[in-house]
């Protein structure tokens, strides 16, 4: 087969030519990062075992093998050997170093393949299931590796001192290191999560949170070593605040910072190894809290988003169906006029005047149908919900003015009052639909007995604005409260054909509520919308 070289996109040619180069560069980068992390964390090695209280570098290896697979195991092996050699001074000699390096690489690879395969953990870390499996795999994997590592050293007859203590320290150090670092590294491999983390760092609010974390950390670090484990719990406070605000990304970032500062301060002041191990054990608790709390917050937020989206869809559906219903009016008139026209046309001369009149009315109805379609198109034009900061007072004024034209001839007074100059976050057009609908219902109800009255009022209610529409009509009986919100409920359908169901769906899509206060003396409909604080 002859391939025209011109046809191949230049990027592809370069890509093929560059692939090994890129892979080589990436391998070098990985080895350098692994070495750097190992060097930073090579503190307080347990005598002769070379076990340290904090090991974040396995997280890098596990992440690489999780994303790229076993093919990259040789690179990890090189990194581990290099670390043993340059950072730890190869205490086990040439052969021993190679054996332990093989063992560690195999362990990392095994953890990675369990995460990818049997455990099926999504690197986006979106569910409790992902988090639980990640924690279990890390804890068990680290334990197995600790036992194997110490076991090899003991079996080779080199070390026989306190093997169980060695296993425990290896386990705690690796678990603390991996648990804090791996979730972050895994999340960084997913674009969506990466963007989320970067955005988080760019927010102004983040500084306030960082300050709070720094102050609490200072409190812990500045206290005497024997006190540190006792007041460690204080660190949970900023962590919980961050997790609640930013979800998993923020929580894990905070845990990493806390861990790094504690290690660094320990390094600078040279504390007891034992204190550091205790602190690491506490850090594991902190990391697990951060993981689950962060995932819960993420999940909650996602569910909320889904709910809002489906409410928006419901609002759109209701709107479409209400407008489609409305189309039937002009269409019914159209068909009757057309049939009448047919009859009249049988004797066009005698009926000339009436025929002409009927055809004119027919055209008028066609225009009316077109109007409904236009309204439907307007509704869908800007997506489903276009949130903006809306001046409630101005909107209310314009809707009331329009409604007054209908109300005045029926002897109904419409009054409105706004407690302060509110701004709400809403879709202007849909807010108008809700107000118009409630007002026209109220006018309809108030016209039951004269003189009628409709009062519209807006008040602050915590972070919401509460708008209430009160009419002097007969009110809604308690047993009818649920019924009137059903779509196509006919009891008091407005001429517009837009029921309360659609208004409620719209308000709920905005994050507010719409309800009716049952009563015999007057009708009272209320809804809330999130308020926007005024700036300057």
């Amino acid at each position, binding site marked *: 087969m002859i391939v025209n070289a011109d046809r191949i996109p230049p990027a592809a040619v370069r890509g093929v030519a560059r692939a090994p180069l890129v892979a080589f560069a990436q391998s070098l980068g990985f080895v350098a990062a692994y070495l750097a992390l190992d060097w930073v964390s090579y503190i307080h090695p347990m005598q002769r075992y070379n076990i340290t209280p904090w090991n974040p570098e396995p997280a890098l290896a596990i992440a690489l093998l999780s994303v790229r697979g076993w093919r990259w195991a040789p690179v990890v092996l090189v990194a581990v050997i290099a670390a043993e050699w340059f950072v730890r001074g190869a205490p086990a000699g040439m052969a021993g170093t190679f054996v332990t390096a093989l063992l560690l690489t195999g362990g990392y690879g095994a953890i990675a393949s369990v995460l990818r395969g049997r455990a099926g953990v999504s690197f986006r870390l979106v569910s409790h299931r992902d988090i639980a499996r990640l924690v279990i795999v890390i804890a068990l994997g680290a334990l197995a590796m600790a036992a194997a590592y110490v076991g090899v050293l003991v079996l080779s007859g080199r070390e026989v001192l306190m093997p169980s203590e060695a296993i425990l320290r290896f386990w705690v150090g690796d678990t603390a290191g991996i648990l804090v670092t791996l979730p972050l590294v895994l999340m960084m491999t997913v674009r969506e999560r990466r963007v989320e983390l970067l955005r988080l760092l760019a927010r102004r609010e983040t500084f306030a949170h960082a300050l709070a974390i720094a102050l609490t950390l200072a409190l812990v670090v500045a206290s005497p070593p024997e006190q540190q484990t006792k007041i460690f719990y204080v660190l949970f406070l900023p962590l919980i605040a961050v997790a609640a605000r930013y979800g998993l990304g923020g929580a894990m970032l905070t845990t990493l910072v806390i861990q790094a500062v504690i290690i660094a301060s320990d390094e600078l002041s040279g504390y007891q190894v034992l204190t550091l191990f205790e602190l690491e054990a506490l850090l594991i608790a902190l990391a697990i809290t951060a993981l689950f709390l962060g995932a819960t917050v993420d999940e909650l937020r996602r569910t909320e988003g889904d709910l809002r989206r489906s409410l928006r869809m419901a609002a759109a559906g209701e709107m479409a169906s209400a407008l489609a*219903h409305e189309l*039937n009016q002009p269409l019914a*008139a159209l068909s*009757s006029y057309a*049939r*009448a026209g047919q*009859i009249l046309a049988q004797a066009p001369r005698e009926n000339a005047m009436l025929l002409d009149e009927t055809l004119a*009315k027919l055209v008028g109805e066609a225009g009316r149908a077109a109007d409904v379609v236009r309204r439907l198109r307007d509704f869908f034009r800007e997506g489903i919900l276009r949130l903006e900061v809306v001046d409630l007072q101005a909107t209310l004024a314009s809707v009331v003015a329009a409604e007054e034209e209908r109300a005045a001839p029926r002897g109904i007074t419409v009054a409105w009052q706004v407690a302060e100059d509110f701004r709400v976050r809403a879709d202007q057009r849909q807010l108008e639909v809700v107000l118009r609908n409630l007002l026209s219902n109220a006018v309809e109800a108030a016209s039951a007995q004269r003189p009628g009255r409709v009062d519209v009022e807006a008040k602050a209610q915590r972070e919401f604005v509460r708008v209430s529409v009160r009419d002097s009509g007969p009110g809604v009986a308690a047993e009818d409260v649920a019924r009137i919100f059903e779509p196509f409920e*006919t009891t*008091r359908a407005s001429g517009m054909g837009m029921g309360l169901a659609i208004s409620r769906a719209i308000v709920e899509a905005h994050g507010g509520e719409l309800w009716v206060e049952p009563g015999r003396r007057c009708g009272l409909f209320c809804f809330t919308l999130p308020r926007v604080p005024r700036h300057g």
Partner: protein
Amino acid sequence: MDELEARLVVHVVDDDAAVRDSLSLLLSLHGYRTAMFACAEDFLAAWKPEWCGCVLADLRMPGMDGLELQATMAERGIDMPVVIITAHGDVHAARTAFRANAVDFLEKPFDDRGPVAAVSAAFERERERLLERETRARQSERLATLTDREREVLALLVEGLTNLEVAARLGISARTVEVHKARVLAKMSARNVAELIRASAPEPRAEG
């Protein structure tokens, strides 16, 4: 019959002016007389007992809707046939309306059969109703001519008693019963007791 025909009017109750106007035009071109009402309340306020024909009411109206109008009419004994106009074949509304004896459902936009067929069916029913009402009126006029004793005899005969039993019950002779019975049959223009029973049966009630 022609006199009755002239009294039949289609009462269109719809809040939409164009629908009202077009319906009335179309029906008048088919030779029907129409009256228009913008809402159910207007119709009920204007109603007079001598009105007959049918009611064409929209299901969805501000204030009282079509089904409520139908229910109120039944309450007040306005038994003109009702045709409900609906824009969506709402099963629930249809069930309610038919249970309340609606003649027909007219779906918006109107189908091929259209409002004319619905109105013609409604008028058919109205004619039957008016005829029956007339017969009934004649019957009650005849009943009014009976004496008290004759009415007693009639009541017992209708219950299914024999002449002898009637005589025993009223404490009169069988012969006297015979005489009363003959007079009752003559006044009610019935040939036998079976016809009497049919004529004096209680008025059938519309039930759901």
